[in-house]
C-alpha cells in the first residue's frame, strides 16, 4: 500500500511536469495569455464542481474569509504566464529545476522569518547546503543546454530552439 502511494505521488509530480510541457506547447501555438486562460478556466470549472458536490460545510466561506488570503491567485497567474512563455524556450528540465529552486528558496525564507503567520524554522547548515546544491543543479542544466545548443548549431547551422518559435 505504501509503495503504491509513493508511486502515486511520484506520478503526480510527473503529471505536473507534463502539464507545464503541454501548456508551453499550446502557448507557442495560440499565445501565452490564451493558454494560461484555458488552464485557469478549466481548473475553476472542475474544482467548483468538486467543491460544490463533495466539500463539507465550513463556518467561513470564500466571501467571509479575510480578502488578503485570496490574493494568492495573483501569484498563480504570474507563474502560469511565465512558465507558458519560458517552457518552450529554455526546455522542460531547465524550467522545472528553476521553478523548484525558486519554490524551495522562498519556502526556506518564509520558514526562517515566519512570514504569512507560519511557524519560524531557522536556516541551518543543512538548509544552506541544500540551496547551494540547487544552484549547482541549475548551472549544470544550463551548461547541458548550452553544450547541446552549440552541437546542434554546428551540425546543421540551426539552433535547437522550438520549431514553432522561429515563425514568430
Amino acid at each position, binding site marked *: 500500500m505504501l509503495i503504491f502511494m509513493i508511486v502515486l505521488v511520484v506520478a503526480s509530480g510527473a503529471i505536473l511536469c507534463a502539464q507545464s510541457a503541454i501548456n508551453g506547447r499550446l502557448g507557442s501555438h495560440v499565445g501565452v495569455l490564451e493558454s494560461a486562460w484555458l488552464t485557469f478556466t478549466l*481548473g475553476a470549472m472542475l474544482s467548483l464542481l468538486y*467543491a460544490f458536490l463533495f466539500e463539507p460545510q*465550513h463556518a467561513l466561506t470564500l466571501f467571509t474569509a479575510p480578502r488578503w488570503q485570496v490574493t494568492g491567485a495573483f501569484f498563480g497567474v504570474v507563474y502560469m504566464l511565465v512558465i507558458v512563455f519560458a517552457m518552450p524556450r*529554455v526546455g522542460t528540465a531547465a524550467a522545472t529545476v528553476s*521553478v523548484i529552486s525558486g519554490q524551495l528558496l*522562498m519556502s526556506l525564507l518564509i520558514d526562517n522569518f515566519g512570514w*504569512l503567520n507560519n511557524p519560524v524554522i531557522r536556516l541551518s547548515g543543512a538548509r544552506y547546503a541544500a540551496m547551494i546544491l540547487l544552484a549547482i543543479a541549475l548551472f549544470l542544466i544550463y551548461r547541458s543546454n548550452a553544450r547541446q545548443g552549440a552541437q546542434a548549431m554546428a551540425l546543421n547551422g540551426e539552433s535547437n530552439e522550438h520549431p514553432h518559435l522561429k515563425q514568430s
Partner: protein
Amino acid sequence: MKHVWLIPLVVAAGMGLSVEAGLLGPLGEEVGHAWAVVGIFALGSLLLTFGLIFGRPRLALMFSQPRWLLTGGVLGPVYVAALTIATPFVGVGLTMVGILFGQVAASLVIDHFGWLGSARREVDGYRVAALVAILVALWLIH
C-alpha cells in the same frame, strides 16, 4: 542558449508559487481546501478573461488544436486529487520529496525523447549530476 535571462524570471515565478501555497494553506483550513482552490482558479480565470477581452484573443485557433493540447487544465486538478489521497498515508515530507523527484525525472525524460512537442535535449553527464544534486538537496531539507 539565447534565453538565459528567462531562468531568473522562472525562479522568481517559483518563489511566487511558494507565497501562493503559504496563503492557500491557512485559507483552506478556514473555508475548506476545495473552496480555497476554487477561489484561486476563479480569480485567476477572471483576471485572464479581462486580459483576453482587451488583448487580441485567438480562441478560434485554440479550439482548432488537437484535443490533447487542451488537457493541461484538466491535469492540475488530477494532481491535487492524487495529493489529497496520498498525503495521509505517506506524510507531507515524503509527499513533497516524491513530487519534486517525479517532476525533475519527468522533465529529463520529456526533454530526452522530445515528447509533448518539446525540443530534444538528451540526458548527458551534466543532467545526471544535476538530478543527483537535487536529490541530495531534498534529503538535506526534509
